[in-house]
């Protein structure tokens, strides 16, 4: 694609392909995400954004192509191995442990970086070493007051916040967010944008988002996918004027968010 490769890509994908029983959902995608950038992934429904996320995080195995993070080849690695290499993700559909409290969620996430999880002979009090950090993270996303309620009982917006906190707890170099504002009201959206702004410091964020206001507010670069291929890549201001993007995705800008 005509766009120049950013200077120090932390995450690169080369010619990624994913087939589902003869259906090609991702079709030769090249992606370079610059270190420290917020990179938005947009595109029509079914363009392959979520599938690309699944590939990058190991939930699907690519049919072809390679994935590198920080110079390491992570192609074909399992999700947990990728997570350990500093790639964390949130889910498009909220995905939590309904019976655990937010504090327990974070303790679990923090523990993931250690071998403590295998110590079946230790008391679970050993997890207390993570409590301070957990509460700290909850505070960051505004959940401090709800640290000990079962997650299943949290309101939707708070669940999304917890999703974010979980991803943060892994202290990832690269954070992948799948539609972080889907299903949120205006005010929650604003709050989430604020939150992402705060947490982007020191890390790279890749997000799928249909809400152009959010993209405009956050993204340094935008990649537009269509039918499994990269249509356009560039800064938001450029991309939104691209006639191909307008006809394939944005349409008549009046109705856009």
């Amino acid at each position: 694609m005509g766009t120049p490769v950013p200077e120090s890509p932390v995450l690169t994908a080369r010619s990624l392909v994913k087939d589902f029983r003869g259906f090609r959902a991702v079709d030769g995608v090249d992606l370079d995400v610059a270190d420290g950038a917020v990179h938005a992934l947009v595109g029509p429904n079914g363009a392959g954004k979520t599938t690309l996320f699944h590939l990058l995080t190991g939930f699907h195995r690519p049919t072809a192509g390679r994935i590198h993070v920080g110079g390491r080849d992570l192609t074909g690695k399992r999700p947990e191995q990728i997570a350990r290499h500093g790639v964390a993700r949130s889910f498009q559909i909220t995905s939590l442990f309904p019976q655990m409290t937010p504090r327990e969620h974070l303790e679990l996430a923090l523990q993931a970086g250690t071998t403590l999880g295998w110590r079946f002979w230790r008391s679970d009090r050993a997890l207390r070493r993570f409590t301070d950090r957990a509460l700290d993270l909850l505070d960051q996303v505004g959940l401090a007051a709800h640290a000990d309620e079962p997650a299943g009982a949290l309101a939707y917006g708070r669940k999304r916040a917890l999703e974010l906190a979980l991803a943060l707890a892994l202290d990832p170099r690269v954070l992948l967010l799948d539609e972080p504002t889907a299903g949120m009201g205006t005010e929650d959206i604003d709050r989430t944008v604020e939150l992402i702004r705060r947490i982007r410091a020191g890390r790279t964020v890749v997000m799928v988002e249909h809400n152009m206001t959010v993209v405009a507010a956050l993204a340094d670069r935008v990649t537009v996918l269509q039918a499994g291929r990269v249509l356009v890549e560039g800064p938001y201001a450029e991309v939104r004027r691209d006639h191909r993007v307008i006809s394939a995705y944005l349409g008549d800008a009046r109705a856009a968010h």
Partner: protein
Amino acid sequence: MLHIEDLSAWYGEARVLTEVSLQVAEGEIVTLVGRNGAGKTTLLRSVMGLHTTGGARTAGTAEFLGADLTRLPAHRRTRRGLGYVPDDRGIYATLTVEENLTLPPAVGPHPWPLGQVYETFPRLRERRRSAGTNLSGGEQQMLALARVLRMGARMLLCDEPTEGLSPLIVQQIGKILRDVKDQGVTVLLVEQNVHFAATVADRHYLLAEGRIVRSLRGDEIRAREHELLEHLGI
């Protein structure tokens, strides 16, 4: 056409709707706006006769085309011409896309033929042999809407049909809703996207904490956006 009087709904002890009354006239598009947890979904489910299981109950009346719905089971309500698009899209994993479309019976005077559905949503034609839930989030949303259109329902109850859809498709859905309206279909729409609501709807009800707090005409919503946002906000 739809006439709701003093509708209240509970989840166990928790009352989530309090004496809601509203009317939708034939051929109208009415939106229901309100922030997360206001009770929008519950209202639609109550009208569909789905707010019945596991401690859920309702009080009050709902009339559709002059007939009392209160005692009818869900499938009989549908047969009278109500079409429902649930907030979780309700796509069947065990059915293919095409089966998802052909499953429900026709319930109204103008069911869409399959060809028209595929013309309007070419994506669905391409994916018609896949399992329903293998579709992308947005494609599932289309499928859910296409399904009730195929039934030819006289009135659509749509719960956030634009969530997760690309701007282009959102516009397309707006157009579809206006088109079906021209064919005489009535729509009750739950929507968080105020801009979208403004472009399609004739009237709006603002729901907050289980009560109707405002009723606005179509264009008023933009003019009074600030005031509204306050309601939606806090």
